[in-house]
């Protein structure tokens, strides 16, 4: 087998078998399952506990019935029960655990409902909030009756204003589509961001480990450093695709299975219901290009350090670039058509995130996408050629220095004169 593939598969398989890789993958899968099954998990813990009962001490005798009516509409799980004793007895029952809390109802001087809620703790804010909401409704009805406002008029008063947004541009995304795209783009941006940082780190560490353990000298006497560098980048790339494939397929299956329970919830907001195929294709394209861009930088930066401890320091500027790109992308989610985002999306270091954001959220002419990909690919090629030369010299340099001046030194080593 060709040396290139020997290194590629050695890198891939030996990384695949490391404990840290397996543990990270398993933890992420578990988190993913937990997230997609959130409704089931909450239901599982709640199904045994009885519905919360609230004792209502109604001094007026006329508020309980309408309150119960309102409660049904607001929260079916919360039962209000008329309590026949006085407040002290009710408190005793709460202390014994019979009721979750007691609600004392009265009328104030203006003949409007007033209430006080007592429970062992008020850490659970949802119960008093629901009760308050129900009473608010009740109060509104009573107040309007007092002022002789007809229910129809009241309805008119509270009806929301009619407001419709329409995009005039041809093919522009509708609001619904935009919301879906935003969620998906958000998630994919996160994946690109984490993958670039994580696998970039992995490559730099890998190179630095080989250098600091001095196995590098033997490796590069068998295989050219350039071949070795690209085999390594591709090996780790394969690893990243494997990990993502596992995570995404687990996530996909899990979401598909839980889709009914999630309707209208969190996941619909994120646009998983119907995903545009082109968005996914662009996500893959920009992910791969972004990976190559940063992997090349990481590899040659890693080749400049002699000790593993110096790796983080060396790749900090690269990490900064990724973080900056991600920050801009987060800003751009709200305003994808800002000129700022438009221009920066052509800077190759930010293209993978920003151009993907624009592709996902807007309808931009194809030439813009093609141009940005062109610039990105050209940058990757340039960096690869430059990086390979630095790498070739860098792996032979030992010493405590680890600054960017070393790039010059490394280039000098590979020069013929």
């Amino acid at each position, binding site marked *: 087998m060709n040396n290139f593939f020997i290194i590629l598969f050695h890198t891939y398989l030996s990384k695949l078998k490391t404990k840290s890789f397996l543990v990270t993958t398993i933890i992420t899968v578990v988190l993913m399952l937990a997230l997609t099954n959130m409704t089931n998990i909450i239901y599982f813990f709640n199904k045994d506990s009885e519905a919360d009962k609230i004792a209502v001490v109604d001094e007026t005798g006329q508020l309980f019935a309408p309150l119960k009516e309102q409660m049904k509409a607001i929260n079916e799980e919360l039962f209000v029960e008329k309590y026949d004793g006085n407040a002290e007895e009710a408190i005793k029952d709460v202390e014994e655990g019979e009721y979750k809390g007691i609600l004392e109802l009265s009328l104030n001087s203006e003949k409007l409902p007033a209430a006080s809620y007592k429970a062992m703790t008020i850490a659970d804010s949802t119960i008093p909030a629901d009760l308050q909401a129900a009473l608010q409704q009740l109060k509104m009805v009573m107040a309007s009756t007092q002022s002789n406002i007809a229910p129809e008029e009241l309805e008119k008063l509270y009806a929301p204003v009619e407001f419709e947004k329409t995009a005039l541009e041809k093919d522009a995304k509708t609001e619904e589509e935009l919301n879906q795209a935003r969620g998906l783009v958000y998630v994919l941006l996160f994946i690109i961001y984490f993958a670039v940082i994580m696998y970039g780190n992995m490559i730099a560490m890998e190179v630095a480990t080989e250098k600091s353990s*001095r196995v590098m000298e033997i490796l*590069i006497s068998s295989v050219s450093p350039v071949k070795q560098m690209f085999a390594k980048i591709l090996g780790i790339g394969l690893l990243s695709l494997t990990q993502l494939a596992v995570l995404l397929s687990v996530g996909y299956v899990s979401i598909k299975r839980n889709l009914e329970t999630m309707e209208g919830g969190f996941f619909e907001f994120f646009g998983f219901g119907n995903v545009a195929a082109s968005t996914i294709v662009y996500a893959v394209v920009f992910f791969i290009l972004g990976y190559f861009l940063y992997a090349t930088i990481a590899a040659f930066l890693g080749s400049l350090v002699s000790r593993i401890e110096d790796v983080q320091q060396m790749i900090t500027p690269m990490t900064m670039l990724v973080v900056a790109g991600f920050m801009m992308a987060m800003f751009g989610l709200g305003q994808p058509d800002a000129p700022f985002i438009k221009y920066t999306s052509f800077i190759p270091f930010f293209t993978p995130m920003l151009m993907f954001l624009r592709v996902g959220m807007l309808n931009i002419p194809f030439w813009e996408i093609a141009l940005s990909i062109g610039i990105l690919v050209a940058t990757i090629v340039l960096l690869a050629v430059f990086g390979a030369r630095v790498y070739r010299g860098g792996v*032979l340099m*030992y010493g405590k220095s680890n600054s960017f001046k070393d790039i010059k030194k490394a280039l000098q080593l590979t020069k013929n004169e």
Partner: protein
Amino acid sequence: MALKLDNVTKRFGEFTAVDRLSLNIPEKEMFGFLGANGAGKTTTFRMILGLLDASEGKVTWDGKPINYDTSSIIGYLPEERGLYPKLKVRDQIVYLARLRGMQKQAAIKELDYWLSRFKVPEYADKKVEELSKGNQQKIQFIAAVLHKPKLLILDEPFSGLDPVNVEQLKEAVIDLKNAGTTIVFASHRMEHVEEMCEHICIMHKGSPVVHGSLKEIKRSFGKKNLVIHADFDTAFLKDYPGVTRAKQTTEGIHLQIVGEHIAEDILMQIVGKGFIRKFVLEEPSLNDIFIEKVGDSYE
């Protein structure tokens, strides 16, 4: 089939690491490559291996340039030892051997042979970081020779080993040489070079200062060593004409003299002064030659 360095020069910016070095190392020979620290040995090795390009001149093996296409015929044991600390011995030896063009099964077979030869077959499934430094060195040596290279470069192969292991490794090196491997051998241990090499080259500040057959070098060096152990004070011999170097010891004196006739004169001088327990005239050692050629310029 020979390794040829033709007027090879390597400059790093202003600094000249190797200056017009020409060597001709015939096939099946063990060649001693000596030099003080920083003399340009490692740079020369890196140029032979193709890791660095020569600024001038060229390196050829069998008339052809050495590059990555020829990596399967070259074995290299670098001075700075390095293996993957977390990898099992078998996995990494097989990996490195495959990079040198060996098949996996053949590499495993060969590894088993070498491990049992070094009496450590149980190391195959151990991680390198679990082994002692000396044993790591054996593994490193195996990595360099496993693929049966035609040209083997050994940079300080015996440093840090105990005498038993040195013997084991030395024997292995000699076997390889007898089997037809051309070996370039760098060491600071002069007695090893003296014992094993026919031809040597001493590098100093990038240029060869001594180069040729060891016997020839010794003969043309001319100077001899004279060891005298006597009961009387021998210190006055320091200033005797023809003595180039003198070192007082507890039992007498070690002299370096320009020729055999000086020894005769000295013997005449000291006979009758007292009891002489030892009077030996010795050939110069490589150590003496090295110190003479390289050490003087330190002063």
